[in-house]
């Protein structure tokens, strides 16, 4: 902890008043309200693709919050991974399966109360945790607390084990996805092989029994 905290200033309860917020704090709160609003709309809207697009607003707002906390590197990674990849994959999945323009009431599974309960419970847990952990402590952001260099040093000197554990977890997920996507029957049906132009008869005609 010492590296980050030394750069970020003390965690002592400072003699600062919550009644005279700085401009940065006001913007932080406003963006927070925006993120919350976008998130709520995202789970309540009845249009599937709109939900994904509101998710873009919510996640982008989170990146802005990271920026306001001077964690620049984390903010860009948030944009790269969540906006650029995850949401695009969500949209891709929606378009591949079913994404009509307009409302899609059949997408409602009736689990609304259960989801609400789970969401409220986890939100309450997290809010309690954060409030209890930091209470009235004050982190001074004027230093270079969130630069790429400091984030990297901190990550690879204090948090190497969780970092590597996460890597193994992601690798396991990757291998699992490959295993799941392999067909179980061993591929006896003739499928066109990717990347090669097939001349001659169309692939509907039964050709060689097994290509790979």
């Amino acid at each position, binding site marked *: 902890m010492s590296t980050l905290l030394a750069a970020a200033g003390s965690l002592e309860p400072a003699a600062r008043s919550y009644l005279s917020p700085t401009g940065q704090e006001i913007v932080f709160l406003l963006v927070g309200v925006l993120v919350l609003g976008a998130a709520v709309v995202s789970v309540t809207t009845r249009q599937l*693709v709109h939900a994904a697009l509101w998710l873009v607003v919510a996640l982008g707002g989170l990146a802005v919050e990271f920026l306001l906390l001077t964690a620049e590197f984390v903010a860009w990674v948030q*944009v*790269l991974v969540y906006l*650029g990849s995850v949401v*695009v994959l969500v949209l891709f999945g929606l378009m591949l399966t079913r*994404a009509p323009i307009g409302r899609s009431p059949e997408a409602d599974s009736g689990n609304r109360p259960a989801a609400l309960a789970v969401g409220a419970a986890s939100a309450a847990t997290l809010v309690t945790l954060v409030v209890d952990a930091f209470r009235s402590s004050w982190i001074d952001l004027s230093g270079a607390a969130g630069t*790429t260099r400091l984030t990297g040093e901190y990550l690879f000197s204090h948090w190497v084990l969780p970092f590597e554990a996460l890597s193994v977890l992601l690798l396991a997920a990757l291998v699992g996805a490959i295993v799941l996507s392999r067909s179980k029957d061993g591929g006896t049906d003739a499928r066109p092989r990717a*990347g090669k132009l097939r001349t001659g008869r169309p692939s509907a005609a039964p050709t060689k029994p097994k290509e790979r």
Partner: protein
Amino acid sequence: MNLLDTLLRCVGTLVAFLVLPLVVGQTEHKVMAHMQGRLGPMYAGGFHGWAQLVADGVKFVQKENVVPAGADRRVFQLAPAVALLPYLLVLLVIPVGPDGMVGQVVDAGIFFVLAVMGIGVLGSLMAGWASANKFSLLGALRTAAQLMSYELPMLLAAASVAMAAGTVSLPGIVDAFHWWWVPWQLIGAFVFFTAGLAELQRPPFDMPVADSEIIFGAFTEYTGLRFALFLLSEYAGIVVLCGLTTVLFLGGWHGPFEDDLGWLWTLVKTFALAFVVLWLRVTYPRLREDQLMRFAWTVLIPLALAQLALTGIIKVAIS
């Protein structure tokens, strides 16, 4: 940095954003024409049709802005802005010359650039879905499928340069450049440039807008100014990609008389790469989506990993 300085930098970036893509577009008209034994535009503006794209722009503004009856109006109208604005933001952080000749120095420049460029894909997806047209939807699907091919090799190639320079800031990378980086990072440059072509949907990777198959992909239903904005985003993308390749792999403003003419070197290198982009369009036929996927995962990613290993070995050897 005072207010006037900030304002000047923003205006300078905006002017570059509005002028350079048009120059690339006009060059494309002329280069394609001469490579195909034609003359290209010759009348607009008098001298070799230099004002052709200005005339095109005026024509686009005059046309009616049609929104299809079945479309999702708001998403449909928002899509061009989502496609275009990321490139403006990226242009802001590309260093042009020495001594702070850059719109804004960003600490994690490479990450910023790659992250923001990735958002442009959302514009195509929104356009394709909201048009309520099966060709548009197919184009959007192809755009998203293409993303899975190019994003990883592009990141790996950029990571190799960051490793060589020991920094992720774009001006820092140009500062650390030596001439022998060009042969050292040659494979990475090839991977980055090729993956970038796939990101811009330029031939030979223009499957998402393949006009002989799906009309104009996600942009089929667009008319007037919004269509022009999509076209502008494609050419701004060429400028951004070539500028980035210049900065990362070709040494940016380094060259003879770099203290005075650094900005000129950046521009010259950028336009030389842009010429290659246009050249490839005239030379190669369009690939299929699965061929690009195969190419990316069996050629580009192994090459990028090999480059990463090579960078690491040499970095350790010289330190």
